């Protein structure tokens, strides 16, 4: 059931268990909610969950102690009551970006409350199309008629019988038709996976409705939205629309504090709208490195080839800037001032029309200036860091900490990890394209990372693998001459656990300017696994990411090819 008055129906509770999924948007939403709970002294327990199994375990452990559960970025796209089997009094509040929302979750009035805006482009089928009270089989009603008819002479009774039989056949036919239509509607509804408004933004609006929003919460909402854009979960249109909505909040916050007479201290947090370059982490790196490792420039210049490198050198010469290999912070101020315009001018000549993107930046103190994308990359790198002795929950805590302003060293550490990650992605993309590792299987492209590839451990995690797939598909679409291959989706496999012999398989929709980011691989993987009885684990909250045994890989792929042809 959708919650209409988010403040009254959700917020007035005393003790709650927060189950949070492992992605940056969920972390930001969690921070906003924690800040609100601190304000109003609602006791809570925070548990990170990696997938459906973790969710089940956490629920079992905590169901004795808590009546209310809040699920962030998990639980909307599957029938929750069936999966978790809760008691009657347990109530779930779900704030999730995964769509389509399972119809049982939508139409359950008592135990499931969805914190999702109803105008969020949901397309939920109407109640009567899917559910109906089971009618008695025509038999009972006909027996009533028969008993009436028994007092009549036998000729008439036979006619009544025939009438009854006809009605029954008619009812059965209507029922079969209804069921066929129901299957069709559900199939269309559940076929494509996509994402809705960021959870952090939804919870920020809750804070705003209660007039308890602060700049910190606004900044977290911005990071949540930017995370969706960086990991390619929403369309460009939606991103721009949501940015405009957040921009109104930013102006409101900026105007209520600062005016001519009392300007804010330099240590206070200031958020500003920026029309900034699409170069990842460029303010914490040298400009040259950033250009070499950002998706947009990497794919446009085709930097894996020698020609591409030459073109890059031409571009840099055209820009006419010096000190490109120096750390950004040490570049001359004169150069930094006109940087964006100079780069935009030069990139227009080289076919990069939208090198600039609307985003937000924050600065507090004299030294600390960050863009939203920087923080997203840092938090994602911390969340999935593969260094030894760090369990999943340790990483969760570190990533959660790096979002606070008082933990800048954690944030800087995240930025360093993110740089390594981006460099690893760039090298892997270059090697995949140069060694022609991407093969067309017919209805989709397929690429498999081998065990000994450098940094392959990084790609056993979903967020890093998402970025790699996105960069790879974009670069491949630019580099291939085959017109058909340009519009194919990509399935990628990377080794997950060598001892158990599993790989992580992920599918992304085709690369296209006007793509609506709807992913059909979730259902396709399910069906392919069923039909070949491969040993798969559909544990991730995103249905398009699964684990598979290495031996079953080839038959799984064959089934997928047949399914999608």
């Amino acid at each position: 059931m959708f919650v209409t008055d988010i403040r009254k129906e959700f917020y007035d509770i005393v003790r709650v268990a927060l189950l949070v999924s492992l992605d940056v948007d969920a972390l930001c939403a969690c921070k906003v909610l924690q800040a609100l709970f601190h304000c109003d002294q609602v006791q809570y327990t925070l548990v990170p969950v990696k997938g459906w199994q973790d969710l089940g375990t956490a629920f079992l452990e905590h169901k004795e102690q808590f009546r209310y559960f809040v699920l962030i970025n998990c639980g909307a796209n599957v029938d929750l009551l069936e999966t978790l089997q809760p008691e009657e009094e347990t109530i779930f509040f779900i704030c999730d970006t995964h769509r389509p929302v399972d119809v049982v979750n939508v139409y359950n009035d008592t135990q499931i409350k969805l914190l999702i805006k109803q105008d969020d482009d949901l397309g939920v089928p109407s109640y009567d199309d899917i559910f109906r009270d089971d009618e008695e089989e025509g038999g009972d009603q006909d027996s009533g008629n028969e008993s009436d008819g028994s007092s009549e002479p036998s000729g008439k009774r036979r006619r009544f019988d025939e009438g009854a039989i006809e009605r029954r056949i008619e009812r059965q036919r209507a029922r079969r038709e209804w069921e066929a239509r129901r299957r069709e509607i559900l199939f269309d509804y559940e076929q494509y996976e996509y994402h809705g408004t960021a959870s952090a933004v939804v919870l920020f609006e809750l804070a705003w409705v209660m007039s308890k929003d602060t700049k910190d919460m606004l900044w977290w909402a911005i990071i949540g939205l930017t995370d969706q854009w960086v990991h390619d979960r929403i369309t460009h249109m939606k991103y721009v629309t949501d940015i405009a909505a957040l921009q109104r909040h930013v102006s409101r916050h900026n105007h209520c504090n600062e005016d001519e007479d009392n300007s804010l201290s330099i240590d206070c947090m200031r958020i500003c709208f920026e029309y900034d370059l699409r170069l990842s982490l460029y303010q914490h790196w040298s400009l040259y490195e950033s250009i070499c490792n950002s998706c947009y420039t990497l794919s446009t210049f085709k930097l894996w080839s020698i020609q591409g490198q030459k073109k890059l050198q031409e571009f840099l010469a055209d820009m006419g800037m010096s000190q490109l290999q120096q750390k950004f912070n040490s570049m001359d101020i004169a150069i930094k001032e006109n940087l964006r315009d100079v780069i935009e001018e030069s990139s227009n000549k080289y076919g990069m029309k939208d090198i600039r993107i609307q985003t937000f930046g924050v600065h507090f103190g004299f030294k600390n200036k960050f863009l939203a994308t920087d923080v997203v990359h840092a938090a994602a790198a911390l969340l999935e860091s593969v260094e030894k002795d760090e369990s999943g929950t340790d990483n969760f805590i570190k990533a959660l900490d790096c979002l606070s302003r008082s933990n800048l060293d954690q944030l800087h550490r995240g930025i360093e990890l993110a740089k390594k990650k981006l460099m690893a992605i760039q090298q892997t993309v270059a090697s995949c394209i140069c060694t022609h590792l991407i093969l067309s299987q017919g209805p989709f492209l397929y690429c498999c990372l081998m065990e000994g590839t450098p940094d392959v451990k990084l790609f056993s995690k979903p967020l890093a693998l998402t970025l790699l797939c996105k960069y790879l598909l974009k670069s491949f679409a630019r580099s291939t001459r085959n017109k058909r291959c340009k519009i194919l989706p990509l399935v990628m496999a990377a080794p997950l656990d060598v001892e158990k012999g599993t790989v992580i398989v992920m599918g992304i929709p085709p690369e296209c300017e006007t793509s609506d980011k709807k992913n059909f691989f979730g259902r396709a993987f399910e069906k392919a696994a069923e039909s070949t009885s491969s040993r798969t684990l559909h544990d991730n909250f995103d249905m398009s990411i699964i684990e598979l045994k290495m031996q079953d890989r080839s038959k799984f792929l064959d089934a997928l090819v047949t399914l999608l042809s």
Partner: protein
Amino acid sequence: MPRNCCLHSENEAKSEGRSELIPSIKFRHCCLLRNQRCVTAYLYDRLLRIRALRWEYGSVLPAAIRFHMCAEELEWFNQYKKSLATYMRSLGGEEGLDITQDRKPPKSLYIEVRCLKDHGEFEIDDGTIILLKKNSQHFLPRWKCEQLIRQGVLEHVIS
């Protein structure tokens, strides 16, 4: 060490006609007095630390610490506990006031804590049970957490 021991030894020396020993006796006496002062200072410092233990750990000391205390010190500790308890009961009306809580003025009623190791289930005042698993975070009333923070099970998160 009483002064008359020294005088007694001096008198003995004089009476036996060995007055050249008197400086040695005086010197020895000074050394003994000095040693006595050192030992007393040490024992007094131990006492002060044992007193601080009551404020640090509460009324039950960990076995590791009890191992290093002698019987008299334990006795002293118990008596100190008793007099502190009597004093606390005399404050604050009916139930007394636990002055070992909140030694610094608290900033908030509830604090956010992070669990550093698996501690199992933990019960708070109104009967609700919290499961303390490694790396889970909780937002709980301050007085309930202080004990566990001192034991090192929970960590106060300041963000």
